[in-house]
């Protein structure tokens, strides 16, 4: 069984690589209870600075490492000082979104400076190989292991046994109390960010050398796997992050061994979900801890929503309804069609994230379920398109709710992480379940939209159809919000402990919200499938989920009109800015950051 030895060694080797990112994440979470989605971007910066040092400046290894660490630490300090510190009294969702915005901005800056082509990053270590099992490892494997373990140990000692370390832990437990004890909380946060960023930057450089390849896509993968490893080990638990990474590496390796390479990431995300469901505090927390006293502060900003008068809304709806009758180009109509489809997804997400407080990062999965159901019914069973789309909505409501239900018992950031993982899992299942979905080849020749036998092919007819469906869903949702369910959902969002005390079963109401929201999203996906005539596993991806979340924040959490306004803005503006081409995503990231900083309750306010 020597192969199992090889799989084990390989699992540990790749776990080694994951550990570098996970330790940095754990450190930051340990201090500020923040999952730093920008850690992968700092990693990226480190890799490119390393490239400049090695290839252009030709510095020796020690100097390279110092240079990379210094630049990365500086970036970390800037992020902390200008991106996160202004948000420290803001609601807890703000830093989460800020780090996402920062990651966009950093990634784009690197891409604009260096071009998107991958480049080689030569290792500056001697080219020796050591036999282990039937394979070999090299000095970089040892260096990476060394850095990972040493930094974990050093951090552990630092946090436990030094004065500054105690200050860090005190701040993590209770910021206000720490301040009253004379701890300079800002300095503590800065120190930790600087350290974590330096570590992240050096990691990026090492991993770039390890694979002899750096490119701007490496940051997202690093963040995702790092988050999985960190949560498995116990968020905030630095040694736990190392063990969690090894475990992740092993699970992936054995998963490949048993089932094949295409299942690799599926196992990674399943591991995450299993741990979150069984041991949300990570594998190393005791099962029956004191229930954490949930902070009475809400996850959402208190706000006075802008109440749009009915007549104004009616005029707006009428104006948009009449638009195709005016001499506007099909391009404008198509852009608005995209806005209406995104609007349906945003309605769904604003209900779930805004009204009920479940900040889902995997919402595009609901689009995919609806799209595939509708496409398959009309392709394989010749179901009329209108009915197929409705079935898509129903399937998304039922199956989507079922799949997301493991996250119902979680709170705060963990909900977002779990839903992110579930979204990835759905995408991977679609990729691998070939007998049904055709795998990567996808479904082509999907019949176009048609209603009662009439094909809807002109831009105007598709526009009216999608606009009508969206308005209908919006009206239903608004009605829902004025019913007892509206206040029940919002009570759960504002304080789920008090809500339970008064008879609101969390599972029941979260499920209801996802059922309604799932239907809306599924219908949107179904319409898209018939519009595009071709879909595969890449059509509905995490980028869509994040875009929908940005729309929801922009419009105001829970705000129905806001969701639609936000969709029009976030679809229309990039089209208007096509001139800016390469800078679009950068602008998008900056917009997200500004929103979170200056108007976290959104344009029309949280309801």
């Amino acid at each position: 069984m020597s192969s199992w030895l090889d799989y084990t060694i390989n699992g540990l080797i790749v776990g080694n690589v994951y550990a570098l990112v996970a330790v940095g994440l754990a450190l930051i979470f340990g201090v500020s209870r923040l999952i730093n989605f920008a850690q992968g971007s700092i990693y990226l910066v480190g890799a490119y600075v390393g490239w400049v040092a090695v290839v252009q400046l030709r510095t020796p290894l020690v100097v390279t490492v110092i240079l990379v660490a210094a630049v990365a630490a500086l970036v970390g300090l800037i992020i902390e000082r200008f991106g996160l510190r202004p948000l420290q009294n803001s609601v807890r969702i703000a830093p989460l979104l800020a780090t996402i915005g920062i990651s966009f901005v950093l990634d784009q800056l690197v891409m604009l400076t260096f071009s998107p082509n991958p480049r080689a990053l030569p290792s500056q270590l001697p080219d020796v190989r050591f036999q282990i099992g039937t394979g070999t490892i090299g000095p970089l494997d040892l260096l990476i292991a060394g850095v990972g373990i040493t930094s974990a140990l050093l951090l552990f000692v630092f946090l436990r046994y030094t004065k500054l370390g105690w200050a860090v832990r005190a701040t993590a437990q209770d910021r206000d109390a720490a301040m009253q004890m004379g701890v300079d909380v800002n300095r503590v946060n800065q120190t930790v960010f600087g350290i974590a960023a330096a570590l992240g930057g050096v990691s990026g450089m090492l991993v770039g050398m390890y694979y002899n390849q750096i490119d701007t896509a490496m940051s997202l993968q690093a963040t995702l796997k790092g988050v999985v490893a960190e949560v498995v080990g116990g968020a905030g638990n630095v040694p736990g992050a190392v063990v969690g990474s090894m475990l992740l590496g092993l699970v992936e390796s054995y998963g490949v061994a048993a089932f094949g390479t295409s299942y690799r990431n599926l196992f990674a995300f399943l591991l995450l979900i299993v741990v979150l469901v069984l041991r949300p505090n990570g594998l190393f927390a005791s099962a029956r801890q004191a229930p954490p006293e949930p902070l009475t502060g809400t996850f959402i900003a208190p706000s006075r929503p802008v109440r749009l008068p009915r007549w104004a809304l009616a005029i707006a709806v009428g104006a948009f309804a009449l638009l195709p009758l005016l001499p506007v180009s099909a391009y404008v109509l198509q852009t608005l069609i995209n806005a209406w489809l995104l609007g349906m997804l945003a309605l769904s997400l604003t209900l779930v994230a805004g009204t009920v407080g479940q900040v889902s990062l995997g919402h595009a999965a609901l689009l995919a379920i609806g799209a595939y159901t509708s496409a398959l019914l009309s392709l394989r069973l010749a179901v009329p398109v209108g009915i197929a789309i409705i079935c898509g909505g129903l399937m998304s409501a039922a199956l989507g709710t079922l799949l997301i239900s493991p996250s119902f018992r979680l709170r705060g950031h963990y909900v977002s992480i779990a839903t992110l993982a579930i979204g990835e899992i759905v995408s991977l299942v679609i990729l691998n379940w070939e007998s049904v979905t055709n795998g990567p080849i996808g479904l082509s020749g999907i019949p176009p939209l048609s209603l009662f036998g009439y094909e809807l092919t002109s831009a105007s007819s598709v526009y009216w159809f999608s606009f009508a469906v969206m308005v209908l869903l919006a009206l239903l949702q608004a009605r829902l919000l004025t019913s007892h369910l509206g206040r029940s959902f919002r009570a759960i969002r504002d304080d789920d402990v008090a809500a339970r005390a008064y008879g609101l079963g969390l599972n029941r109401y979260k499920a209801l919200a996802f059922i309604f929201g799932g239907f809306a999203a599924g219908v949107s996906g179904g319409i898209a499938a018939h519009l595009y005539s071709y879909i595969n596993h890449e059509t509905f991806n995490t980028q869509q989920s994040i875009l929908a979340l940005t729309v929801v924040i922009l419009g105001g959490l829970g705000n129905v009109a806001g969701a639609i306004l936000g969709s029009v803005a976030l679809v229309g503006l990039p089209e208007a800015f096509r001139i800016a081409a390469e800078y679009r995503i950068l602008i998008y990231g900056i917009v997200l950051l500004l929103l979170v900083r200056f108007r976290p309750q959104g344009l029309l306010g949280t309801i």
Partner: protein
Amino acid sequence: MSNLDRRTLVKGSLAAMLIGASRAAFADSSEPITLGVSGPLTGPNAQYGSQWKQGFDLALDEIHAAGGINGRKLAYTFEDSQSDPRQSVAIAQKFVSDLKIVMELGDFSSPASMAASPIYQRGGLVQFGFTNSHPDFTKGGDFMWSTSVSQADEQPLLAQYAVRHLGLKKLAVLHQNTDWGRTSRDYFVKAAKDDGAEVVVTEGYIADERDFRSTLVRVRDANPDGLVLISYYSDGALIARQARQVGLTQTICAASSVYSPKFLELGGDSVEGVHIGTRYFPEDPRPEVQKFITSFKAKYNGVEPDAFNAYSYDAMNVAAAALRIGGTDRKAIRDAFAKVKDVPSVIFGSVTFDVETRRVKGAMNAELVVRKGQFAIWDGKPT
């Protein structure tokens, strides 16, 4: 001045005046003919968009040097779709509504291309794909044309190299788990079997993956005598490096999609001895290839071109040929594609469309191997 000179001078100026006059005779001939390009300038596939531009610009230089399209310049406007179907669909409407645009090129990926096809077909604008390889692309309608090499043609060539020429009998196939990777794998497996080889294992991986060690252990345990890579250059390089690190010494044979100077740069020593089936190579004696490589290096600071540069270069030349035949009317351009004959092409040798499938049959073939860090023609010797 001699009589001869004076006569030449007079003839020359008369000629110049006539040419000038005939140019003026073309109404609005000062405006360039505009093509629309839908492709990734940002996002995960941004590197391919920039390679497209390099190929287009090179082809345009040559087209203009030869007098343009019946005297008019040719230009393109590149809209960033990020290879996202939502954006490619909006861009499609934009192009269809803009009457200055006579033809569209792109998109990069199949979902983005095929989502937009209904709009191009209904709008009557040719959608000319050249890197989207989904077999159903041209079934979108008679406005859909493609010079993307059909895997049905390409994979048997690779199988021939691996099985009949290199003599490999038990193959392990590693491929990207995308529509292109899967279709290619399926055609390769069939062709290899037809040639008498056995495919002992196939492994599909996600394009962004970096760690292949466990995959390679699985491959090793199936006891192949050769590895076949259906990969792009980044993942191809990673696999080759890690194969050696895991202790695999088998011959590696890769598809043309790895053909790029980047493959050599990223792979370093570990790609030494890797065999690649390509459509052209640096010492390819064909004049169109030499012209392409030389001008590319001259224009881009000595950098060698790769497969994506070649596809886009060819595509622009084919587009120009169609425009010369069909003029600037959109429907006439569609009909012109059917009449395009023997356009010189780096990839195909010469391009003539099969009117039934709206694709180009056949492809040039060169069997290469990496020797001393360079691509060289395989001399038939074992590695």
